[in-house]
């Protein structure tokens, strides 16, 4: 458990990478705005969430050092997102398999 203290072997991300990531994020923002111009029907939401997830993983990996950190932190994030998906899946499973019943009078 004991790490040597004198030299912090934390990986320092080179300056250039930060600016490249910002560039990529801005391009993706423009992309997502452009994508919303066209009407792909219900596909739009999936594209929106898809592009947002790419941007999110960029921020997570570089800005938040997740790429160079303990695998445990990534597992934590994925578990929380997984349980959100479970919550969404079962709630939607209930909402959209109800036998709809109209009034009879």
């Amino acid at each position, binding site marked *: *458990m004991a790490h040597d203290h004198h030299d912090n072997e934390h990986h320092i991300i080179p300056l250039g990478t930060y600016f490249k990531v910002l560039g990529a994020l801005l391009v993706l923002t423009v992309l997502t705005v452009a994508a919303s111009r066209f009407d792909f029907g219900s596909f739009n939401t999936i594209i929106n969430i898809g592009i947002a997830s790419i941007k999110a993983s960029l921020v997570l990996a570089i800005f938040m050092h997740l790429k160079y950190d303990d695998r445990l932190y990534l597992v934590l994030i994925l578990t*929380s997102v997984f*349980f959100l998906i479970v*919550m969404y899946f079962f*709630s939607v499973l209930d909402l959209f398999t*109800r036998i709809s019943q109209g009034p009879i009078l």
Partner: protein
Amino acid sequence: MASSDPNKNYLNEKSGLMSWLTTLDHKRIGVMYMIAVMFFFLCGGIFAMLLRTELIHAGPTIMNSQQYNQVMTLHGAIMVFMVIIPGIPAFMGNFFLPMQIGAKDVAFPKLNLISWYCLIIGAIVVVASLFYHGVDTGWTFYTPYSIKTMNGTTLVVAGAFIIGFSSILTGLNFVATVHKLRAPGMSFFRMPLFVWALYSTAILQVLATPVLGITLLLLVFERTMGIGIFDPEMGGDPVLFQHFFWFYSHPAVYIMILPAMGVVSELMATFCRKPVFGYKAVAFSSIGIAAVSFFVWGHHMFVSGQSEVAGILFSFITMLVGVPTAIKCFNWVATMYKASIRFDSPFLFALGFLFLFTIGGVTGIMLATIGFDVHVHDTYFVVAHFHYVMVGGTLMAIMGGFYYWLPKMFGRMYNEFWARVTFVLIFVGFNVTFFPQFILGTMGMPRRYFDYLPEYQPLNTISSIGAYTIGTGFLIALFVILHCIFKGEKAPDNPWGARTLEWQTKSPPPHENFYQQPVVTGGPYEYR
């Protein structure tokens, strides 16, 4: 390391109220949680006695229907949010988790103190609702009733929201402590089973409680601005509120029972003087229960208008979560095979736990069978089931843990005879109170009923008599504990001869728990 002065310990190291209210020592925070949880249990218990007095015979006895609904709601809310969820994790967990893994304190002591203040502030907000028209929605706050009813509900919901943070911060603290502060040599499979149980509870607290936070926040917005997400008049769906609520509340019932299972594993190992049978099986079933608990919440909504497909799927997964629970029970019984058993009162409470939790467990499987559940859903059968699992499970474990660890926490021994009296009173009183309620539920008496039909009269009277027996039992237990803390005679450092780390130091333990950093070489229950 701790100052080597032998008669200095965490209790008399500093004195004065401020030293307690601003302490960062996990043991003092544990004792402060103990006082808070005991006080809330007293309040919740009084409401329980009022309920049972009201239900002794049909018709109004001591209060009218509106008062009954408020007492019923407060009994539920106080017992769930302020007694049973913080009960074992915050009180015994805070005190003994760091000691059992050989650490000097939890990972974030300041956060630990903040979580105690969250519980107290939240409790004050909940009690404040009494003076502001009260609350009568039941502890589940189902909409749209909770939207339209008296305006004490906003305060109780806000109070529960604040108490939620106490649970999140405790869970966060324990996960960080178990990962980062284990003593050298203590690998994950050398940790005591109490730590395993608290670790899986902490994961549940961290991952489930935030969803309750957002649900209660939305309910407060619903009541104040009427945003209409859960209000059918404005397009909302009340069943969706139930999905959001139970997505937290089912993992919450495992937050209540898993620490109790941890305490029972400790009691089994110490009083059978042998390692718990199938250590890895018990440890992994704690994690298994925690994992599967996120998929089963729909069994609270079998008849709520949820679709049949979802109901059947939830019934199937609920059966799966029953398997690790059954494994744990069988492992405890197998631990007693060829053991060397000593019948002190902590162990009596562990046996009481096994007896009552088995009945609670099998009735849980009966309720999970969707065909039968339709008949007994929202009846006294369900009330009996969850009291068997919560009172018979968690409270028996709290009492067992209390008597087991009192000598370590305060260095004094409790009175063995009176402790056994409390066991007999609580155990017998419990069965007399709640077993008839299974039969009432089968006969079709719905729950949360202020008045009932004459044919349910005899069993309700028996149940009320049993409730008074439990009441006396817990009251005597209160005196036994207070007597032990202040006037009990000196206890040796390891009265039970237990092998886990917290018993290898002085009692009451010094400020930094150990005089020299313990190095772990073997498993937690090495008796040979």
